[in-house]
């Protein structure tokens, strides 16, 4: 044992003793976390051949062709999984053809904010090369035709407060809390393959084999390889 071992042992051993308060950490187990699953059926979805065009409170689907209906059905399914905490990304196509170029750029950039993370309006404005346009970015996001799928809820004010959200501040809080409780990358301990949460392969991983990773390089560093179906390495 060398000096580093001793230092580490002292550092980590200097445990934050909780004493008799440890039991306070055991949460009320029955009742469990609030889920948003029941919200899944409360959206109305419009789609064209190219993808989903609108999503708003309501019911049912507006899609004229068979292809459009397939996009809408995929959106319904993915939304259900997302709200149940079983999915960390959307693969359904979004059709932003009816959206002005500036707004399309803002929405595309918002789509790059990783699952579970947040960014300020000002940061997003900077990333699209319009650092003084934070307010315009806010307006563009406020008029997001496909909320949730295009994650405008991950954009918050610079001071950490939520800002406006079409479905209300309470919903924004719940979506961010849901994302906080849902891991984005899940590895399978028996196959040593890492998937994005929501990939069909990931959904088959048994509870006892689930290992969460923070990034694909992290997973690679301990001998896992990225899944070839959901391509977590390409998404990162």
């Amino acid at each position: 044992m060398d000096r580093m071992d001793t230092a580490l042992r002292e550092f980590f051993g200097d445990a934050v003793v909780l004493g008799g308060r440890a039991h306070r950490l055991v949460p009320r187990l029955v009742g469990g976390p609030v889920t948003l699953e029941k919200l899944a059926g409360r959206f109305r979805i419009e789609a064209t051949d190219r993808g989903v065009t609108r999503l708003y409170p309501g019911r049912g689907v507006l899609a004229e062709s068979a292809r459009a209906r397939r996009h809408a059905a995929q959106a319904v399914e993915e939304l259900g999984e997302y709200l149940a905490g079983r999915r960390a990304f959307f693969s359904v196509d979004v059709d932003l053809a009816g959206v002005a170029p500036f707004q399309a750029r803002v929405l595309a950039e918002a789509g790059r904010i990783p699952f579970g993370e947040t960014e300020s309006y000002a940061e997003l404005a900077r990333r699209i090369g319009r650092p003084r346009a934070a307010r315009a970015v806010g307006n563009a996001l406020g008029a997001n035709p496909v909320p949730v799928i295009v994650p405008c809820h991950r954009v918050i004010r610079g001071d950490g407060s939520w800002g406006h959200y079409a479905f209300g501040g309470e919903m924004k809080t719940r979506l961010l809390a849901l994302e906080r409780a849902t891991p984005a990358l899940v590895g399978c301990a028996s196959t040593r393959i890492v998937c994005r949460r929501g990939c069909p392969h990931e959904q088959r991983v048994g509870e006892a084999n689930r290992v969460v990773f923070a990034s694909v390089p992290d997973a690679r560093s301990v001998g896992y390889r990225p899944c070839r179906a959901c391509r977590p390495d390409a998404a990162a």
Partner: protein
Amino acid sequence: MDEATFTRHAEAYAGRLYAVAYRLLRNRADAEDAVQRALLKAFAARASYAPQWAVSTWLYRVLSNVCIDELRRRRPPPEPPPTGGGHHAPRVEPMDLARALDRVPREARLLLALHYVNGLSYRELAKIRGISVNTVKSQLARGKTILRKALGD
């Protein structure tokens, strides 16, 4: 596993789980939150708990999953300013060590915390992270090398 048994195990391990979470996340609120979320997840999944696993291994696995995902959301810390010229400190100060740990990759940092906070064996660490014992050893060694370098040892 029924609710009463689960609660008993949870109470027995809450302190140790908290110690690991605190060392990784570095603040009280996040550590408490991580332990609570881990226990809720473990409780929800208790039907799939395989009795050939030690309860502790299983709880550490769930906690590690929560902590690693929490670390994912944090931006990497800014590069620390270079520490004053090559003099050898007589001992490693805890504050320096805490800062140096930020430079250790997450996987190795987690293994270091589990190994040194709770004295878990290589075999247990391997099981918790779903990796081989050799990977555990090389990760721990790599972590310590980075620490030594960061501390100018």
